[in-house]
């Protein structure tokens, strides 16, 4: 009898142990499933918040683009896979070359009022925009900017080989590149159009440039009056030439200067404040870019704005694409 009772007791212990062992994985599994389900829900909620952040960020960027289009007087155009043309309308409101019309202060104040603690615009970038309004052309990393104090528009390529046309030469990289054929066949690296409301005999002064066999940049300067081209000159110049090409204009000697300095940096300067110019257009031909023209993008300076979502601890810094 005692033996039987002992056996039953042993069996009961075994059964309890078996139940316990079975229960452990089931409970573990349940906890795992529950936590996975909660995490999955959290991830989806976070995805939604990220989408909101992204949507708001994109809308603000579009807003900057719109303000830029409405107030800056600058238009951008890419007519081939290599050529970017930046045109500044200086007629309305009337400005000197290098003066900046773009002013996003009201838009920034609107954003900071309507989205407090969420959207911010960095002061130093705003300062940079009001001082220079640099536009970054990607993927070349070139910068088109202004110097209002010196009435200058500056185009600064990141490296000389972006602009330098090295076609058909013995050597294929600057500074040992040699351009073959006659100058008339060389591609134009910079084309500058000056449009004026009045003109009486614009003269573009010749520059002692370089010739075939040297390292040259080909630039063309056009003066347009009353919708028609009045004068046009094409020059081959050294990429490090600091002697400007002077344009006598509206009866004033050397009213506008065009200077090329290393590394193929272009400066268009208004030296006489009484000069009246309606438009300045700078066309830049990139030497070796073979991608789609849609890949050329123009941005305001980096890290212009930041958006935060404090509840999920995510912040995004971005700039605005304007073209």
């Amino acid at each position, binding site marked *: 009898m005692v033996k*039987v009772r002992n*056996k039953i007791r042993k*069996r009961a212990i075994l059964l309890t142990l*078996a139940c316990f062992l*079975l229960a452990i*994985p*089931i409970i573990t*599994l*349940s906890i795992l*499933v*529950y936590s*996975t*389900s909660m995490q*999955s*829900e959290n991830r*989806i*909620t976070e*995805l*939604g918040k990220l*989408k*909101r952040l*992204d*949507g*708001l960020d*994109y*809308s*603000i960027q*579009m*807003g900057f683009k*719109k*303000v830029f289009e*409405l*107030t800056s007087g600058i238009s951008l155009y890419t007519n081939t896979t290599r050529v970017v043309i930046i045109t500044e309308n200086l007629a309305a409101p009337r400005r000197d070359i290098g003066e900046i019309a773009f002013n996003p202060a*009201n*838009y920034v104040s*609107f*954003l900071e009022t*309507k*989205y407090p603690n969420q959207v911010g615009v960095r002061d130093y970038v705003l300062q940079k925009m009001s001082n220079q309004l640099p536009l970054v052309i990607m993927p070349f990393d070139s910068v088109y900017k202004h110097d209002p104090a010196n009435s200058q528009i500056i185009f600064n390529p990141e490296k000389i080989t972006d602009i330098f046309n090295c076609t058909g030469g013995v050597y294929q990289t600057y500074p040992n590149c040699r351009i073959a054929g006659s100058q008339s066949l060389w591609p134009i690296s910079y084309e500058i159009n000056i449009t004026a409301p009045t003109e009486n005999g614009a003269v573009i002064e010749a520059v002692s440039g370089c010739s075939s066999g040297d390292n040259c940049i080909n630039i063309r300067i056009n003066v347009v009056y009353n919708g028609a081209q009045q004068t046009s000159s094409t020059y081959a110049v050294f990429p490090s030439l600091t002697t400007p090409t002077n344009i006598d204009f509206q009866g004033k000697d050397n009213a506008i200067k065009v200077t090329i300095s290393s590394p193929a940096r272009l400066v268009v300067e208004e030296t006489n404040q009484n000069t009246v110019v309606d438009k300045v257009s700078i066309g830049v031909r990139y030497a070796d870019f073979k991608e789609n023209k849609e890949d050329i993008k123009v941005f305001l300076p980096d890290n212009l704005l930041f958006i935060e979502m404090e509840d999920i601890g995510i912040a995004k810094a971005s700039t605005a694409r304007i073209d």
Partner: protein
Amino acid sequence: MPSLKLFCGRNKGFIFTLDATIAAMIVISTLIVSSVYISKSREEALPGLQMLNVGYDILNLMAQKNLWNDGDANSLIDALVPPNYYFIIKRQCGTIDTIWYDLAKDADTPTTIPTGEIVVTGDYAFVKSGPTYCRARFYVWLK
């Protein structure tokens, strides 16, 4: 003791197999039930993301095409909002919130945002010619 023989005698293998089978069935059924709950919770959350995407897609398109006047925006929303969604955009150009569009394909969209239902919202900033600075908030929920 015949009953003892049944449990611990030569049928011991059968009992262990039965035990293992029951255990396996319990584990499998737990997995099935839990996976049903997991997929259900995902199903509940995913339409919310979809509604958010629809809302932002419409506003992005309006911004791209600069369709901020009432007639153009109305046509665009008519064309793009799925028929099973209610969609409202509130905009604020200045200080007063106004219901801009109470729309879905039909005219039965409530003019107030429902409470007690899942309503997806998103914020948008936009600039109209002028420039006039505006903010918009869209609301999407299922019919």
